[in-house]
C-alpha cells in the first residue's frame, strides 16, 4: 500500500498533481509557523544582554543557513537517486532544489553581513565559516550554470548530479569550521551536543522560524519541480491535458 503510493510519485503526471496539493498544505503550515515565529521573535522575545536588539537577525539568519545546508544534502541525495535509478522525478527535484537552495544561501550570507557590520565591525571577513558558505553558493550557481550549458536534459542531469555529490564534502566543513579553525564566527548555539546556549524565550521563536522555513522550502521545491517537470514533458499527452488543449 505505502510502497505503491511512493512508487506512483515516480510518474510525472502523478507527481505534477500531488506536488500541487502538497505544496499548498506545506505553505499553509509554513505561513502559520513563520507568523508565530515572527511575533515571538520580534515582539515577545527579550533583547540580548550583550547585543541588544540587533540579535533579532538570528531569527532569519540561522533558519536560512540551516535550509541552505539541508537543501544541498537533499539535492545530493536526489541527484544520487537520479544517477542510479534514472528516475525522471529525482532529476527534476534535484534541479528544483538548486534554485531554492541558492536563494536561501544568498539570504544567509546577506543577513550575516548585515549582522556582522554592527556587532563584529565588518560586513565580511575571510573566515573559514563565511568562506565555506560562499563556496556553497558557488556550488549552487555552478550547478545551475552547468545545467544551462548542456543541451540534452538527461546528460545535463547526470553531470549536475555528479557536481552535487562532489560538493557534498563542503557541508561538514561548514558545520565544523568553527571548531577546526579560529573563526570570527562563534560556535553553534543550537546544533551541538550539549543543550542550546540560548534562553528558552529566544529559542522557541527560533525553532518556529526554522521549522516554518523548512516547510516553506519543501513547498518551494515542489513548486519549482512542477514547473521544471512541465518543461521537460512538454510534448507529452498529460502536459497537453494540463494546458487545457
Amino acid at each position, binding site marked *: 500500500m505505502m510502497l505503491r503510493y511512493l512508487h506512483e510519485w515516480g510518474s510525472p503526471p502523478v507527481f505534477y498533481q500531488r506536488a500541487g496539493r502538497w505544496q499548498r498544505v506545506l505553505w499553509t503550515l509554513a505561513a502559520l509557523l513563520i507568523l508565530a515565529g515572527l511575533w515571538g521573535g*520580534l*515582539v515577545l522575545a527579550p*533583547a540580548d544582554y550583550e547585543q*541588544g*536588539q*540587533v540579535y*533579532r*537577525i538570528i531569527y*532569519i*539568519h540561522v533558519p*536560512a543557513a540551516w535550509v541552505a545546508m539541508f537543501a544541498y544534502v537533499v539535492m545530493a541525495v536526489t541527484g544520487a537517486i537520479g544517477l542510479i535509478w534514472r528516475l525522471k522525478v529525482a532529476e527534476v527535484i534535484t534541479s*528544483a532544489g538548486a*534554485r*531554492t537552495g541558492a*536563494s*536561501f544561501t*544568498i*539570504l544567509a550570507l*546577506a*543577513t550575516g553581513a*548585515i*549582522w556582522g*557590520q*554592527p556587532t563584529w565591525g565588518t560586513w565580511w571577513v575571510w573566515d573559514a565559516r563565511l568562506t565555506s558558505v560562499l563556496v556553497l553558493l558557488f556550488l549552487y550557481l555552478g550547478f545551475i550554470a552547468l545545467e544551462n550549458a548542456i543541451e540534452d536534459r538527461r546528460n545535463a542531469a547526470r553531470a549536475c548530479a555528479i557536481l552535487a555529490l562532489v560538493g557534498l564534502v563542503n557541508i561538514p566543513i561548514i558545520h565544523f569550521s568553527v571548531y577546526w579553525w579560529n573563526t570570527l564566527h562563534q560556535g553553534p548555539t543550537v546544533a551541538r551536543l550539549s543543550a542550546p546556549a540560548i534562553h528558552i524565550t529566544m529559542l522557541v521563536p527560533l525553532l518556529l522560524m526554522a521549522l516554518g522555513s523548512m516547510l*516553506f522550502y519543501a513547498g*518551494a521545491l515542489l*513548486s*519549482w519541480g*512542477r*514547473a*521544471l517537470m*512541465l*518543461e521537460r514533458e*512538454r*510534448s507529452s499527452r498529460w*502536459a*497537453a491535458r*494540463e*494546458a*487545457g*488543449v
Partner: protein
Amino acid sequence: MEAIQEFFSMGGRGVYVWSAYAVFAGVIVFNVLAPLLRRRQALRLVARQQRRRETLAERTGAASGRVPD
C-alpha cells in the same frame, strides 16, 4: 504610539534588523512567484505546441483526403 516607534527603531539598529527581514521577504516572494511564472510560461508553450500539431494534422489529413480526378 511611542511603543510602536520604539519597536521600529530596534534600539537604534532598526536599519540593520529591518533590512535583514526585507531580504527574507524578498527570498520568500522570489520562491513563490518565480516557479509560478515559469510554470505558466510552460503551460502556454505546451498549448501553443499542441495547437500547431493539431493544425498540421488537419492540413495533412485534408491533403491526403483529396482524391485526384
